[in-house]
């Protein structure tokens, strides 16, 4: 797996307010990047932008040295995204949910769903309807995709929310494994994360200065 992701001078706005500005960063194969910042700094906005769900106000996002808006189809094939919300349907069983989430990226996988269920410790709940799960268990259903996806870029918005200690350790191990194989992980988390070679990008440092604020409005 050879991957490279870079932000070139991007800035993002919300309701005409600049959140951050002139953000440039380069992630090579094997990068594990944690985006940090206070509540409302724009972490989620940045993650959405780099997935192509939003357009940046200025600047470009390059994947394999190519702007992501040029060949979105190719980019999507190498992307796995998980946001604040948990895309899990209460009325389907755990297995069914995992199946359809996986079907959105129809690529062969080396792990079976059974195996993924074991990894996230939900084997006993395989046929339980998801609205009967606890908060953390629902989250685990979505996280099981990390064991099934073939994507090389993982973008995770607070993946550790609601997950217990053992689960967090397991998850951290999986992220480490992915980067060791050459993948890239971009995540946000307010919890202290124990991961090796973790790079950190502090959004607070890219806030527009006061003059820029005034110039812009």
């Amino acid at each position: 797996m050879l991957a490279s992701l870079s932000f070139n001078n991007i800035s993002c706005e919300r309701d005409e307010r600049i959140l951050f500005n002139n953000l440039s960063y380069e992630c090579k194969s094997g990068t594990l990047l944690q985006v940090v910042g206070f509540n409302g700094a724009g972490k989620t906005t940045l993650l959405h932008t780099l997935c192509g769900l939003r357009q940046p106000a200025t600047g470009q996002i390059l994947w394999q040295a190519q702007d992501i808006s040029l060949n979105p189809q190719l980019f999507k094939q190498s992307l796995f995204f998980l946001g604040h919300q948990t895309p899990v349907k209460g009325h389907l069983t755990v297995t069914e949910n995992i199946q359809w989430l996986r079907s959105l990226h129809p690529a062969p996988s080396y792990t079976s769903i059974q195996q993924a269920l074991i990894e996230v410790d939900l084997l006993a709940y395989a046929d339980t309807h998801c609205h009967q799960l606890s908060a953390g268990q629902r989250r685990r259903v979505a996280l099981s995709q990390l064991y099934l996806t073939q994507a090389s870029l993982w973008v995770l918005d607070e993946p550790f929310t609601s997950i217990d200690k053992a689960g967090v350790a397991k998850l951290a191990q999986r992220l480490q494994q992915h980067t060791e194989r050459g993948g890239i992980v971009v995540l946000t988390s307010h919890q202290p994360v124990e991961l090796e070679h973790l790079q950190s990008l502090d959004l607070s440092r890219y806030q527009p200065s006061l003059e820029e604020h005034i110039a812009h409005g």
Partner: protein
Amino acid sequence: MAELNEANTGAGAILSRDMRLIWRHRSDIVNPVIFYLIGITMLPLAIGTSKQLLGTVAPGMLWIMAMLATLLSLDALFRTDFEDGSLAQFQLSSQPLYLIVLYKVLAYWLSTGLPLTLMAPMLGLMLSLPADGYWALLLTLLPGTAILTLVGALGAALTVCLRSGGLVMTLIIMPLYLPVLIIGSSAVSSAVAGFGFDRELALLIAGLAIALIVMPPAIAGALKISTNQ
């Protein structure tokens, strides 16, 4: 670990997921039909039971109620997907969004429009619809409900991020429904009057063909607009 698991092809899986979801919500399959049933049943109670009067208003009422029944649960089509983040997953899927949309609409129609259509002749009987109208009712409702679903899905996509989406959708969609309603009910009326309804049927089928081509990309665009803010 060694074995390689083929994932089901994506869009087909959405359809099967949607069918499964719909099956899980079994009430939803039954419900537009029941709404239709109750709506039509209440009619004689409200306007009186004169057979002649009922027969006169039957074509129009059967169509109006079919339209309202189709509309009723449509606003939830993308709502849950939006709220639980599935919509973002759809957008980031390697499948083209309009295909996913098309399958969702198809699943909805199979579970609402189709049973409703099959139901209609029986309800026509209750309203003493003259015998000539049954085929017209069945044949026009078939493409008609499909158009209504496609157009309604656009409304649902445009209002998915709005809290009070359901009724906003009604407002923006109703004017778009009118031609279908007019053509459909006049087809049944003219069949009852002994004239043919070929022209109306041809119009509805043409309309469906256009909607099938135009709507999925429009809906996909609307979904992108709704989520990308």
